[in-house]
C-alpha cells in the first residue's frame, strides 16, 4: 500500500507531455457518478451512515479491484497538505478535500483509476490518462463499474438511468473531459469565440480543478454538460470531435502568432525562460504562467532547451502541497517561493 508521500515523489501518468499535437491535449478523464441503491443521498444521510458507507464501499473496491500497491485512504485521517496533494494530482475534487463528511479515495498504483467515496454522489469512478484517451478511459471506467456492480447495487431507474444527487448528472452519470493547453488562442483573443461556440454545443469549459476553478497557465477542461439521452460512446465522440476542432484552431492561432510577429512571440518565450532560470522567488501563479510560454516555445521550436518531462515534473511537484510534503520547512508560502525558484533553476539546468 502506498502513502501520499510515495505518490507525491512520483511523476503521474496523466501528465506526460508532449502527448498529442505539440502538448495541446494534456490529458483526458472519464468519470461515472453512482449512488448505492436503497440508501438516501448525501444531504439526507447521517454522519454515521456516511462513515458506514465509506467502510462498505472501500471493502467492495478491495474485492472488485485488488490494486496492488495502490492507495486506499480515509480523508479525515489525512492532514491538509496530504489532501491538497491529492487535489494537485487530480485524484480528488476540491469539494472532497474541503468537505467535513467522512470520505475516502482508492487509487490504483499507476493513478489511472480511482474511486472517490462520499463526494456529491456516494461513489465517483474516475479514469484519467495522458493525451486523447477518452475511449480507452471509458472502457476502463465501465470495466471498473461492472466489477463494482457485482458487489454493490446502484440506484438505477429504467427511464432516468443511473440516479444522481443532482439532475445535471443523471442518466449515464458520466462526464468526459479533456484538458487542453491553449496559450495561442488566449493570446490572439479568439478563445472567447471558441467558448461561445462550445456553449451552443452543450459543452462547458472549466479551469484545471473543475467547477468554479480559474484557468491558470492557459489550461482548460472541455467537458459535456448533458448526461441523459445519449449513449456513453456518443458523449465521448462528441467531446472528441469538438476537441479536434479546438486543437486545429489552436494550431492555426500558433501559426498566426509566428507569422504575424515572430519576434514578439520569441520575446515572450525567452522572457519566461529567463524568469524561470533566474528568479529567486516564484509563486505558483508565476510558475504556471511562465511554464505555459516555455511549453509553447518548445512546441514551436522557438526554444530548443528544456525537456518536456522536466516541465511536467516542475508543474506537478512545485505545487504548494507537493512542496510541503517533499521538503522540510515548506509550510509557509513565504518560504516556499524561494524553494520553488531554486528547484526550478536546478531542474532546468540539469534538464
Amino acid at each position, binding site marked *: 500500500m502506498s502513502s501520499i508521500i510515495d505518490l507525491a515523489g512520483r511523476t503521474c501518468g496523466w501528465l506526460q507531455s508532449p502527448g498529442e499535437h505539440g502538448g495541446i491535449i494534456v490529458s483526458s478523464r472519464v468519470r461515472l457518478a453512482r449512488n448505492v441503491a*436503497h440508501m438516501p443521498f448525501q444531504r*439526507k444521510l447521517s454522519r454515521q451512515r456516511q462513515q458506514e458507507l465509506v467502510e462498505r464501499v472501500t471493502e467492495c473496491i478491495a474485492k472488485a479491484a485488488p490494486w496492488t500497491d495502490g492507495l486506499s485512504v480515509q480523508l479525515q485521517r489525512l492532514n491538509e497538505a496530504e489532501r491538497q496533494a491529492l487535489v494537485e494530482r487530480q485524484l480528488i475534487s476540491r469539494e472532497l478535500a474541503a468537505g467535513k463528511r467522512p470520505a475516502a479515495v482508492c487509487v490504483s498504483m499507476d493513478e489511472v483509476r480511482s474511486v472517490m467515496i462520499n463526494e456529491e454522489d456516494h461513489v465517483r469512478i474516475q479514469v484519467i490518462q495522458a493525451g486523447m484517451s477518452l475511449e480507452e478511459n471509458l472502457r476502463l471506467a465501465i470495466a471498473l463499474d461492472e466489477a463494482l456492480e457485482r458487489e454493490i*447495487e446502484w440506484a438505477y*431507474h429504467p427511464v432516468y438511468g443511473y440516479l444522481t444527487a443532482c*439532475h445535471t448528472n443523471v442518466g449515464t452519470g458520466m462526464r468526459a473531459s479533456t484538458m487542453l493547453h491553449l496559450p495561442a488562442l488566449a493570446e490572439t483573443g479568439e478563445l472567447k469565440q471558441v467558448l461561445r461556440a462550445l456553449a451552443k454545443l452543450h459543452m462547458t469549459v472549466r479551469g484545471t480543478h473543475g467547477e468554479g476553478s480559474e484557468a491558470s497557465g492557459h489550461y482548460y477542461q472541455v467537458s459535456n454538460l448533458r448526461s*441523459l439521452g445519449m449513449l456513453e460512446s456518443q458523449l465521448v465522440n462528441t467531446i472528441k470531435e469538438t476537441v479536434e476542432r479546438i486543437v486545429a484552431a489552436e494550431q492555426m492561432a500558433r501559426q498566426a502568432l509566428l507569422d504575424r510577429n515572430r519576434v514578439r512571440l520569441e520575446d515572450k518565450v525567452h522572457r519566461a525562460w529567463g524568469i524561470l532560470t533566474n528568479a529567486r522567488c516564484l509563486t505558483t501563479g508565476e510558475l504556471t504562467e511562465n511554464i505555459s510560454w516555455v511549453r509553447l516555445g518548445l512546441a514551436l521550436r522557438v526554444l530548443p532547451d528544456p525537456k518536456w518531462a522536466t516541465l511536467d515534473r516542475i508543474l506537478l511537484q512545485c505545487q504548494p502541497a507537493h512542496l510541503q510534503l517533499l521538503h522540510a520547512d515548506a509550510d509557509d508560502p513565504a518560504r516556499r517561493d524561494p524553494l520553488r525558484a531554486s528547484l526550478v533553476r536546478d531542474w532546468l539546468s540539469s534538464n
Partner: protein
Amino acid sequence: MQVPCQLCGKKEANIHLTELDATGSPRELHVCGSCSQALGSQLEDGPPAIAALLEQATSAAVASTEAAAEAESTETCPMCGLSYADYSGLNLFGCAHDYVAFGDQLELLLSRYHGASHHIGRQPSRAPSPGPAPSAPATATVVAEGETNGEAKERRRLESELKDAVAKERYEDAARLRDALKGLGQEPE
C-alpha cells in the same frame, strides 16, 4: 378519423393544415379549436408556415406547462421528506425516490437541461433487488432472457425505446434513439 391536437395533445383536432415543403413532401398540422384560437391571427393572415407555427406554439405550450408545474410544486417525497422547492434551492436530491415523487416537474427539468428525459445508455447487468426503490413505469425496457451479446441486447433495448417514443410522438427522443441505433452499426446477418 379522430386525431388528437398536435399542440395540446388532449382535445380532438378539427382544423387540418397541409403544406408542401421544399422537397415536395406534404407536412400536416392538426389542431383543436382552442389551440387554433391561441394561434389566432396567424391563421387568418393567409397560409401559415407550419414549421414556424409549431415551433412557436410548442414553446408557448412548454412555458404554460412549466408555469403550471411550478405553481403546483408542493409535492414532497414520501421517502425522504424533501419537497421540490427544497430541491430547487440546492439542486441536490434527498434520495433516489425523489425522481419518482417529483414526476412532472422532474421531466421538465430534465428536458430543459439535457434536451431529453429518457436514458438510453448503459444499464446495470444485475437485476434490481426489491425494496423501497422507485418502481419501474410501464415504459420500462424488457430485455429478452438468454441474450448474451451485449450489442444485440443494446439494440433490442433501443429499438423498443424508439417504438415507444414514436408511439408517444416524442420525436426528439426518437431522433436521438435512431442516431444511437445507427451508432451501433449494421445488424449482423
